């Protein structure tokens, strides 16, 4: 079976989101099928400017074909168009213009999909909201499998996407909440679907103790992993944490790891440590009391799964239905909607090592039952075989 993975960016430099999700799945599916990745030459997701020079590449043994972006994105113009689009009712023509502006505009990639459809069994498109998925799925609807990685984002309701979600041969969702949201906005219940998600790669060596020593962290700490961004709920997390410290007098610290796009408040117990490699990141998780996830919009939250893989409990924002749903299904974490609930849940977790252990253990079991790589590969293969049989019939 020949599979083509189509994604907006691809490479070892890109270590998050749908791109990493795609890379891991592609690398794991290589054991079962002939895999090729079709992508753009971009690295920067703001402008999609061409960064890779070579058309063909190989990343961790996976063949990669890169296509040039014919027009980089002008963030200012795109912002204006998006603002107008979301504030007023628009026609399909305007929505397609927005899609064009969003990019990454790579007509060569779409032409290649068209030319290679006879030689490829299925095309797996990652991230519904970009140019490659929309036009790619339209080009080969009968052979396309869409992995939307959709969050509760206003653009999900655009007319062009309602149509897109009804078009592919099958859809692979990250969570039942994502499936429900897309079913609700597009009425695509008839499209064959599977809730799969993604596994994680745990490095062989990591140590919480070494991490503590390296960064001079004594005493308990809670960890936030990911982009430090207002859109990820970090501002509210800072407010809640500072208030919690003031009211409770707890010695707990808040450790943040990841790139930052907002000002981190200057507080003796808030430690921003910047971007971390995998080994250090898992060390940070290992040393933490729990992982805190303040994000409002998540399609899956890979870091939550990583915390559970290490049997660490999670304290999540209940306003994100995916995180709340995962916590309830796994019994691996608590959640909060407001400060009072944040305070109670955090106090409970910090004062009860037994509860932390029990939640962490539940999380680990949930991770192994649903997100271990053999489970993920099995789900992909089962769907592909089903589609293959349907095609033959």
């Amino acid at each position, binding site marked *: 079976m020949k599979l083509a993975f189509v994604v907006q960016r691809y490479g070892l430099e890109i270590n998050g989101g749908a791109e990493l999700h795609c890379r891991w799945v592609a690398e794991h599916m290589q054991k079962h099928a002939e895999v090729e990745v079709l992508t753009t030459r971009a690295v920067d997701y703001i402008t999609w400017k061409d960064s890779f020079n070579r058309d063909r590449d190989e990343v961790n043994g996976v063949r990669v074909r890169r296509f040039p972006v014919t027009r980089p994105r002008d963030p200012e113009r795109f912002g204006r168009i998006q603002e107008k689009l979301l504030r007023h009712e628009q026609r399909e023509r305007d929505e397609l213009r927005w899609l064009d502006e969003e990019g990454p505009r790579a007509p060569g990639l779409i032409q290649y999909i068209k030319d290679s459809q006879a030689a490829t069994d299925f095309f797996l498109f990652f991230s519904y909201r970009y140019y490659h998925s929309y036009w790619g799925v339209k080009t080969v609807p009968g052979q396309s499998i869409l992995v939307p990685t959709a969050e509760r984002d206003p653009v999900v309701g655009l007319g062009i996407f309602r149509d897109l979600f009804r078009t592919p041969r099958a859809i692979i969702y990250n969570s039942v909440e994502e499936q429900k949201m897309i079913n609700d906005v597009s009425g695509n219940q008839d499209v064959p679907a599977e809730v799969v998600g993604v596994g994680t790669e745990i490095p062989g060596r990591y140590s919480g103790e070494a991490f503590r020593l390296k960064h001079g962290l004594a005493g308990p700490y809670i960890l936030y992993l990911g982009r430090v961004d207002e859109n990820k709920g970090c501002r509210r997390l800072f407010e809640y944490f500072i208030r919690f410290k003031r009211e*409770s007098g707890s010695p707990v610290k808040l450790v943040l790891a990841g790139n930052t796009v907002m000002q981190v408040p200057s507080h003796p117990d808030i430690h921003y440590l910047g971007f971390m490699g995998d080994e250090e990141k898992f060390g940070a998780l290992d040393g933490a009391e729990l992982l805190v996830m303040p994000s409002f919009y998540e399609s899956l939250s890979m870091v939550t799964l990583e915390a559970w893989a290490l049997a660490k409990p999670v304290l999540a924002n*209940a306003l994100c239905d995916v995180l709340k749903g995962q*916590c*309830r299904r*796994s*019994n*691996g*974490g*608590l*959640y909060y909607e*407001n400060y*009072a*609930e944040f*305070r*109670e*849940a955090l*106090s*409970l977790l910090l*004062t*009860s090592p*037994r*509860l932390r252990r*029990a*939640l962490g253990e*539940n999380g680990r079991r949930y991770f192994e039952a649903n997100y271990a790589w053999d489970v993920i590969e099995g789900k992909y293969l089962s769907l592909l075989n089903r589609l293959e049989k349907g095609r033959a019939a």
Partner: protein
Amino acid sequence: MEPEKIAIDYDRVDVARIMEQIKEKTAAEAGGESPDSGAGVVPIAAIDFAAGQGKARRILLKIMSPFSPLIKLVTLPVHEELRRTILILDHTNRRLDELEKERQRLDRLQEYTKLLHHLCHNLVIELSKLKIEEETLKTKTRIMEKDFELLGKRERTLEKEALK
């Protein structure tokens, strides 16, 4: 903060149950902080009808017992409860009125829709009739054209005959 008050079965941790308890606790706290959550109301147990000691207390209670409903009515804030009930009833009535208006509006809309449906139906019928009439008129025109043509030919023939 008294997290130990939350009951947890550590062998079978149920996050939903824990969260319910946390929500109940925070809701109760929020209720307790509220200014009109009963701070000004004297709880029944706090009223000491049995002031005094021993025999005198018993006698006093006996004398007061026929009047106790009246005393309760006067001392307890029944009027406050009545006021709230009336407010709730008033609110409910207003809501019912709004819903009634909405129902009437929807009924009217339903009638309009029915009328529009009839209108569309009649328009289709009229258009069909017009189409048929148009076809009939076209046929008549063609016949008349042919008659006219024939008459022209006849006219020319007669003219030739007359000139001979």
